[in-house]
């Protein structure tokens, strides 16, 4: 297998935590911010200048479809990839080459299957059963269940090549496109790890939802699966190892099991690759050795259940979570929407509430629905299942809604553009 196509950038400090390369521009008013919002009923693009006070809202794009994720290329910000999906009509990949003004399905061209019938390239996610035979995985009741493709949860564009992008799918597997999402090939080593029969779906399905590319080591990729856990490759995706030591999950008969943990999200500062932060089903965790060992840093959080976690653009020890009451009550504690910030890499946390509703708020913040921009004062963004997208232009001290009444927000990504 050829190595992944992202290359080491000489100045890692110029990369945002989302893998975006910052433009050399210290004047906020000269920059532009583009927020990509995926919702249950379409995609929206929110844009503002560097002050982030006045917003232009465009959309809905792909109205009526679930937009699980959309993300721009750090190499070419006008290149945006979108996962458009439906339980009725299946999976579509859309692409924009002009910053979200127009879209097209790149694989709409002619292609024939081995049997001779026509297929749509970009909508084909076919497991590489020749390289890694399709096994079964554990079902909710503990029985074995066939591995079946359902949808793309997460798209992660390459750090070096606008034509290259990874896709995390349900049932869990990692795919790669080298031709701008025209066609997709599985990286079968992950599914072929051998522990597949012990992977099981979380409430949302057995999804590969997190892909983190290491900006300093192009052969290293982290992924996370609900509910299998976190995995890492150090050889460009050929082989993978579970990195779940230190995680404990009460729903497993062996709480220290190698796989089976419900990891909700992983964040990493590209300024300091190898230091990872994880929001697990319960517990906020930290690893200082690329996932080889984890330790809990929930500290004084009022509840350590949640989905979203992210890292400040310029302060690698400043992290953010959106605590949710419990796994059976997916809304904020006491009806108060709060983001919590730790400036010490965990354990000591402070509530950020200024501008957020502090009564009668019962929304959720999903795993891909928090992001940060790369401006000097680091804007923090998150979307809710109530359709609000909030911004804090000052690292979390003050919040305000950009929009209040979108469909339920599934994902939020931010592009900082010169």
């Amino acid at each position: 297998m050829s190595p992944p196509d992202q290359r080491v950038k000489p100045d890692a400090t110029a990369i945002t935590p989302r893998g975006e390369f910052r433009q050399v521009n210290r004047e906020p008013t000269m920059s532009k911010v583009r927020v990509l919002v995926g919702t249950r009923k379409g995609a929206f693009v929110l844009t503002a200048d560097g002050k982030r006070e006045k917003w232009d809202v465009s959309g809905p794009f792909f109205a009526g479809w679930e937009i699980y994720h959309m993300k721009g290329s750090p190499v070419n910000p006008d290149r945006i990839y979108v996962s458009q999906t439906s339980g009725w009509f299946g999976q579509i990949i859309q692409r924009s080459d002009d910053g979200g003004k127009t879209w097209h399905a790149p694989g709409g061209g002619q292609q024939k299957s081995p049997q001779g019938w026509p297929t749509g390239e970009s909508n084909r996610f076919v497991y590489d059963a020749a390289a890694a035979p399709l096994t079964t995985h554990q079902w909710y009741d503990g029985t074995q269940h066939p591995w079946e493709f359902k949808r793309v949860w997460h798209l992660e564009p390459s750090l070096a090549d606008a034509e290259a992008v990874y896709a995390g799918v349900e049932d869990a597997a990692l795919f790669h496109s080298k031709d701008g999402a025209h066609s997709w090939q599985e990286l079968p080593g992950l599914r072929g790890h051998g522990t597949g029969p012990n992977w099981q779906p979380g409430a949302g399905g057995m999804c590969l939802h997190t892909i983190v590319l290491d900006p300093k080591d192009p052969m290293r990729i982290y992924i996370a699966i609900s509910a299998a856990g976190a995995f890492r490759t150090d050889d460009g995706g050929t082989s993978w190892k579970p990195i779940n030591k230190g995680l404990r999950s009460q729903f497993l008969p062996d709480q220290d099991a190698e796989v089976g943990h419900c990891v909700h999200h992983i964040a990493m500062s590209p300024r300091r690759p190898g230091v990872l932060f994880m929001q697990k089903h319960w517990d906020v965790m930290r690893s200082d050795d690329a996932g080889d060992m984890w330790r809990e840093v929930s500290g004084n959080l009022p509840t350590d259940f949640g989905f979203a976690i992210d890292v400040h653009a310029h302060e690698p020890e400043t992290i953010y979570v959106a605590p949710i009451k419990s796994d059976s009550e997916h809304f904020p504690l006491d009806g108060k929407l709060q983001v919590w910030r730790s400036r010490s890499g965990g354990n000591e946390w402070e509530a950020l509430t200024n501008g957020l509703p502090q009564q009668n708020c019962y929304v959720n913040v999903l795993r891909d629905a928090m992001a940060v921009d790369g401006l000097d004062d680091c804007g923090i963004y998150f979307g809710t299942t109530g359709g609000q997208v909030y911004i804090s232009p000052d690292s979390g001290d003050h919040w305000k809604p950009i929009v209040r009444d979108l469909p339920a927000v599934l994902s939020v990504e931010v592009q900082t553009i010169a």
Partner: protein
Amino acid sequence: MTERVLRIEMPHHLRTLAQVSGEVRLIVQEPVTLGRVLDALEAQYPVLRGTIRDQETRQRRAFLRFFACSEDWSHAAPETPLPEAVADGREPLMIVGAIAGGNQQFRRMRFAREKSAQAVGPGS
């Protein structure tokens, strides 16, 4: 071979995906079977491939139904000829999203056609 012009009605999501509004007209060679109609539809609108039938198995997606002439053709074999009223374009082949809204959409379409027929009078 004789070519026939058919009418296809699709749900909103597929119309927006194919960037069409209203009915789609397709040219299909005889014999007009369900499989040939879907092949022609996917050839004319490649982006629809995989949205109606699974790309690997060619099986109808579970939440879609095929209705024609007030009958359910969802479980018909691909090589089964469609009714002559569909083959000659008098009646559309309807691709309907099942369960949530599908039946209602079907009723709305029928209701609209019946109202239209009443407005111009029977047999016109």
